[in-house]
């Protein structure tokens, strides 16, 4: 009876131990799974580091710090809120980094330190150091928790490496795009920049030449040419600067309540000279103040109107219309010009793209690209269509800010 009892109790203990171990493993697996899921959801190195810190911090009730390798050195890059690292803690991280081995609290090296540092290793080397420090200085890690940290560290290392590689790839891509833009700029623009300079230099050198007797009309025409070409050059430089701002993402959109009528009026005023012989019909429903960047939106309308003037015959009308739908407002600029070949409709907003015109329409192929950049910076969109009865119509649609419904 006694023997049977002993055997049974021993068996019970073993079964319980096994059950406990299985449960522990299951819990570990679950935690690790959650950790990798959090890491997978994070995009970019900063988010990845935040996910690591939050997750390990909560699971192990510890403050967490991440050092990242930068060449031969390593620097603390992210940490739990309020965590400030001491010199001696840094020394632990340095040791772990240099020896590629865990160090600090609970290890064989510098065990009296409050921080425990794990190298973040991948096949390509040590990407950084993971440091954990108990919030309660008397709390020690269990064997299970130590195992967990090891697993967390290897997952974290992979996630960080992946994020770094993605960043490098993006950077390379950006550089390539910038290079392509620069080449396109140089090819397309050097011609456009030089042409006005040729005319200006030519006109000025003729005027300067004392030996040539110029009659008044010729002098006048030379001066007009030089001055017109200088204006064209200035316009081109302005467009290039705008385009660079759009490209570099440096465009700051100041969203503030604006009077659409005032925006349209300011654009018309800027083009007063060019619009002299044009009937311009402005159709405004009773609009509320809507949120936008006043100056940039004037620029968009100036470019659209300028385009309408260029691609339609003198004297033909231009219509500007603004209205509010339930969640958006819409501004259209329409002309009775030559329209746009259907195959070009989508491409007119591309940089340096110009619809082929035989007779001397001058432009930089940047105006509409700038419009698109500005409108997109407002989270809106712009489209071109051919108009019923001839001509083209450009529509820009912009979201109304909350609480602004027509």
């Amino acid at each position, binding site marked *: 009876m006694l023997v049977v009892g002993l055997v049974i109790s021993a068996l019970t203990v073993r079964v319980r131990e096994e059950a406990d171990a299985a449960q522990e493993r299951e819990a570990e697996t679950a935690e690790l799974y959650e950790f990798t899921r959090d890491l997978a959801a994070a995009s970019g190195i900063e988010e990845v580091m935040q996910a690591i810190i939050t997750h390990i911090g909560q699971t192990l009730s510890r403050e967490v710090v991440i050092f990242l390798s930068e060449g031969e050195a390593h620097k603390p890059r992210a940490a739990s809120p309020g965590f400030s690292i001491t010199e001696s803690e840094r020394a632990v991280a340095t040791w772990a980094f240099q020896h590629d081995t865990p160090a600090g609290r609970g290890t064989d090296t510098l065990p009296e330190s409050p921080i425990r540092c794990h190298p973040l290793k991948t096949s390509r080397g040590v990407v950084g150091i993971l440091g954990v420090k108990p919030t309660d200085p008397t709390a020690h890690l269990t064997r299970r928790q130590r195992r967990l940290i090891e697993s967390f560290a290897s997952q974290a290392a992979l996630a960080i490496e992946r994020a770094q590689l993605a960043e490098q790839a993006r950077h390379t891509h950006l550089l390539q795009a910038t290079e392509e833009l620069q080449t396109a700029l140089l090819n397309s623009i050097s011609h456009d920049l030089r042409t006005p300079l040729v005319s200006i230099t030519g006109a000025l050198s003729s005027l300067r030449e004392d030996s040539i007797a110029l009659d008044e009309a010729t002098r006048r025409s030379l001066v007009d040419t030089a001055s017109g070409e*200088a204006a064209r050059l*200035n316009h081109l430089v*302005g467009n290039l600067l705008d385009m660079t701002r759009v490209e570099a993402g440096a465009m700051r959109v100041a969203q*503030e*309540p*604006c*009077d659409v*009528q*005032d925006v*349209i*009026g*300011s654009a*018309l*005023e800027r083009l007063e000279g060019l619009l002299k012989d044009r009937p311009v019909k*402005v159709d*405004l429903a009773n609009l509320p*103040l809507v949120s936008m960047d*006043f*100056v940039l939106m*004037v620029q968009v309308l100036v470019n659209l109107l300028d385009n309408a003037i260029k691609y339609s015959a003198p004297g033909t009308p231009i219509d500007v219309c603004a209205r509010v739908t339930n969640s958006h407002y819409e501004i259209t600029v329409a002309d009775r010009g030559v329209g746009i070949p259907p195959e070009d409709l989508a491409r007119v907003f591309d940089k340096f793209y110009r619809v082929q015109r035989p007779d001397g329409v001058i432009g930089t192929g940047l105006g509409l690209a700038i419009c698109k950049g500005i409108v997109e910076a407002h989270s809106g969109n712009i489209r071109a269509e051919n108009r019923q009865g001839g001509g083209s119509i450009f529509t820009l649609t912009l979201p109304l800010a909350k609480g602004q419904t027509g």
Partner: protein
Amino acid sequence: MTDSELRVLVVDDEAAIRRFLRAALTAHDFQVFEATTGQEALAGVLTHRPDIVILDLGLPDMEGIEVTRRLREWSKIPIIILSVREHEQDKIAALDAGADDYLTKPFGIGELLARMRAAIRRITTTSELPMFVSGELKVDLARRSITLREQPVQLTPTEYDLLRVLVTHAGKVLTHHQLLREVWGMGYENETHMLRVNISNLRHKIESDPTRPRYVLTEPGVGYRLRADA
């Protein structure tokens, strides 16, 4: 108005621009003095006693804004900024610091002369002239009466104040901040929407086509200006 005897101080560190301005302004009977730095400009205003200053923003020793600010500590001399900077923020900063006008390079000499004359006129005609006439708009500040084509116009007190401030600075660009401070008072400088609504209402009352205003003009991103000679 004749420009004879008028003295102008040109402040720019670019020799080519000073040379061109000297030639053009001398041809229009201005007596031209030059300065190449902010310090020279401040000293030049004292020694040459000019009637007007033309000031570049990017000077080697200090910003043109700073020169404006220091001059405004003791002088009301008209200051016209000439700059390649076309950002509204630069214009606003210059005008708020006390500049009278702002012209972006490149510019035509005709435009510069017009702005110079207007700035000088504003300072010589004392603001004690209560009657303002521009085109078909008449504003009698003494009687608080406004007529358009001889017809009386009814304005709300705020619209009237707005028009009054514009009239007392007719021809000059007033920044959003300046208008808000003068009409609504301190602490309202950022309530741009109130200004926009009242400008819109004012235009509907005094402009025949509020989309193409003739009197109350918009300086995009900077402020508003009442046209003095419509």
